[in-house]
């Protein structure tokens, strides 16, 4: 199954809609088949010839049966449509709020062309920021507040739920639940500019224990650099990257770009556009405008061994 297929969902936020889609699809096909059959019958059905009487008049007769078709058709259609409407309302009700109280809340902000994610904890100090990759515990609903950023974006994880826009000036709400562990691809589905097509994200559903481990790791600040090269890399990061990016544990706390405190723990870069890895992240830094032209990561040129030092530091941001 392709990653963005919405026909087979894996959680109660999407299942009722998938079933509705299949159900309405099936009903529609059946209706089409019936109508085609009726049209064909009507086309090829012939009546017995009508005989003219002695004076050349045609008998006038009440046409029985034809209008009955209409009554039956309308009756069946009404009932079926009515039942479909009820089904649709039930499906909408089912996906509007989670079956149990959400385990926690995540705030997602759509920016051109990446996703900022803030996990809210039960105490303020359990609150942390990450980007482009969301982890949720399997089988538990999670509430998502969609905060409008610069322009309208739309948050869609096809295998888990329907689309909800992020609209500047307001906060929309939706929820997610994944009943099977796995990696689910998400995508922006409201045209938002030149790199709209490359504004994806990843939702990882994992067992509770693993989720807690991930969360604790994300909450922790980045480690202090140990080797000289790493220390030099930290200086390069703070001077060259810190105005836009944040790494907790360093002096870099920019908000224009994604939080990078644990960037190497993510499977992708640039909003699921580019795979992650030491070589890959170097390629991204050196050539962002070739990979994702028009995106907000500027074309940089790094001096001498700056890149080597920076990579050494970035590798510590697990």
């Amino acid at each position, binding site marked *: 199954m392709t990653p963005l297929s919405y026909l087979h969902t894996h959680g109660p936020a999407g299942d009722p809609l998938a079933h509705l889609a299949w159900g309405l699809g099936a009903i529609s096909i059946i209706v089409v088949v019936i109508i085609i059959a009726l049209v064909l019958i009507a086309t090829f059905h012939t009546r017995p010839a009508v005989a003219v009487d002695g004076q050349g008049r045609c008998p006038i007769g009440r046409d029985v049966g034809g209008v009955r078709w209409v009554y039956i058709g309308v009756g069946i259609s009404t009932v079926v449509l009515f039942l479909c409407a009820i089904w649709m309302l039930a499906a909408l009700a089912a996906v509007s709020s989670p079956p149990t109280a959400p385990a926690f809340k995540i705030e997602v902000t759509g920016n051109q062309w990446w996703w900022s994610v803030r996990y809210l904890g039960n105490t303020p100090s359990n609150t942390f920021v990450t980007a482009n990759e969301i982890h949720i515990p399997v089988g538990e609903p999670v509430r998502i507040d969609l905060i409008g950023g610069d322009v309208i974006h739309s948050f869609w994880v096809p295998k888990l739920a329907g689309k909800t826009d992020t609209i500047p000036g307001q906060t929309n709400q939706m929820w997610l639940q994944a009943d099977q562990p796995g990696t689910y691809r998400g995508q922006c589905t409201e045209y938002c500019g030149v790199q709209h097509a490359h504004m994806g994200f990843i939702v990882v559903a994992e067992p509770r224990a693993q989720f807690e481990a991930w969360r604790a790791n994300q909450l922790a600040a980045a480690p202090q650099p140990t080797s000289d090269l790493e220390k030099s890399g930290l*200086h*390069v990061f*703070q*001077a*060259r990257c*810190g*105005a*836009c990016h944040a790494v907790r544990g360093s*002096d*870099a706390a*920019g*908000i*224009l770009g994604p939080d990078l405190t644990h960037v190497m723990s993510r499977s992708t870069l640039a909003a699921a556009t580019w795979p992650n890895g030491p070589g890959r992240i170097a390629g991204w830094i050196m050539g962002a405008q070739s990979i994702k032209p028009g995106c907000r990561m*500027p*074309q*940089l*040129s790094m*001096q001498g061994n700056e890149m080597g030092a920076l990579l050494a530091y970035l590798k510590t941001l697990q």
Partner: protein
Amino acid sequence: MDTLKRILPVMVMVTLAACSRSQGGSTTQPSAAALPPEGQIASVPLGDLAGVAATNLPANLHNPLEGNPTAVQEGKNLFIKMNCAGCHGYDAGGGMGPSLVDHYWRYGGVPVSVYKSIYEGRPQGMPAWGRALPPQEIWKIVAYLESLGGTFPADAYHAALQGDLGNASGGGAEEKSRESNRSSSRQ
């Protein structure tokens, strides 16, 4: 030698800007020689850099992004997100830092002078952005400032030095800003 080091980065930029003006972008990175040592993202080198306002650079260096509406919009975004608005005001009318919409420019108001002030920082607390922001991003900010009307046209560099452009916007705003060079309202 020190002066040469300061001029060299922009001279390299100028040469390449002349070559690639039609594409609207200079991609050369000036050397970091003129900047404070690594460590602080945006820290001002101590000492008097005011001398750079009197420069023998080609005075009519245009902003490679001048008039580009996307650059102006992105420059405005940077102006807010790099905290320029925090010191210079959300309307660029001044606050902790001077107004950028009047016609008084202590360190020069033509595009190349504004670029250098942003890149190098200035003695009274203007941070040095040359390491944090690539040249293209600084030109975007300059483009935004140019769109606000307070800067001088690139070709008017010498006239601006001699104070001949002072009254373009009307005397009132300038008189106030000259007299109280800290407008100092809390933003």
